């Protein structure tokens, strides 16, 4: 189409694409495993499928340690959701780095602030 798109845009596009593709592939694998194991039964909204008692970083560390011991539908879906939630996080980090390299301090400040807010949200409790 012959128009200029910044390297930040291309980088962000790549981060979003890879993050979403990998996380959805895992979630799809989890859904297929779930359907094979249970048939297409009603959704199970019981405590087994809910993450409780911690923040996102607790969830992430539990997920990473338990995926090694068992490829259960829950563990596979958890890994997918974890990667999904890390995707926008990584793209704001990319923004900080890009504007830092460009020495565009206004936007370093703006992206750093967004990063701080999101990190606080993920780390509460």
């Amino acid at each position, binding site marked *: 189409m012959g128009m200029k798109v910044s390297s930040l845009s291309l980088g962000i596009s790549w981060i979003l694409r890879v*993050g979403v593709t990998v996380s959805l592939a895992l979630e799809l694998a989890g859904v297929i495993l779930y359907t094979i194991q249970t048939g297409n039964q009603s959704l199970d*909204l019981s405590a087994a499928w809910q993450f409780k008692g911690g923040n*996102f970083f607790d969830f992430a560390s539990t997920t990473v340690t338990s995926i090694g011991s068992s490829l259960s539908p829950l563990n596979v879906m958890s890994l997918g959701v974890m990667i*999904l*939630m890390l995707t926008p996080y990584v793209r704001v980090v990319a923004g900080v780095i890009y504007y830092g390299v460009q020495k565009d301090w206004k*936007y370093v400040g703006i992206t750093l602030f967004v990063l701080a807010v999101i990190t606080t949200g993920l780390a509460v*409790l």
Partner: protein
Amino acid sequence: MIGVLEALLFAISAGFIGSILGLGGALILTPILTYFGVPIQYAIAASMVAIIATSSGAASSYVREGLSNVRAAFYMEIFTAVGAIVGASLTGYIVLIHAEALLYYLFAAFLATSFLALGTMRNREIPEVKQDGMAKWLKLEGTYYDKPAKKQIDYKLGRPALAAPGMFFAGIAAGLLGIGGGAFKISVQEMIMGMPSKVSTATTNFIQGMTALAAASIYFTSGFVYLDLAAPLAIGTTVGSLVGARVLPNLTNKTVRNLFLIVLVVLIIDMVWKGYTS
């Protein structure tokens, strides 16, 4: 209660419509899920996780094509992210005091305000903008290739200070109701900042991912996220939205606007009916 495969199907349809309109799909999906007996706070939380995937998937195309204004998006995320955390905390509080009915009424009310704003104001193809000092300081401008018009369009944005409280409110609504808040973000961008319709849809999809992550982090801590609901919704809305993102560049701003209005009317009727019968 629906099964995982039905959840997947509903999510695909909602994702397709949502992506074309910049709504993120949850506005359509949450009423469907609650209709089938999913408690509203779990529908809200799963939709929010799904929105991260939907918006990021659509935004990856928009950003690469130069339709999303990344600078304006980072600026607005300051306000939507803080708002989303406030809103999601409010949802936790509402559930804690067993006032879930309030969430339905707020959902309907939010839909109504988006409809009123867009129905009257969203008519212009390319808005004229006079940039103020702050907009110049933030370098809020951009350019994109308009496929139907077959030409490169340069635009400038204005009034970022006025857009800030609008974006904060959009963030609160998003976090509170588990919706992207796309309708409201689009109207702030177009009516206050003077953003062209297609750029506004593309930029909203981009911002949505961050807003949704901020809110989802709070739902996580509140224990509202069910993985067997979040997973099919994330897959379905994203697949639907990717198809939508391929269709959007070929539509005129007028077509997008008219479709937007029709969907809003249907959803408002649906929520009013649900509020009336509950």
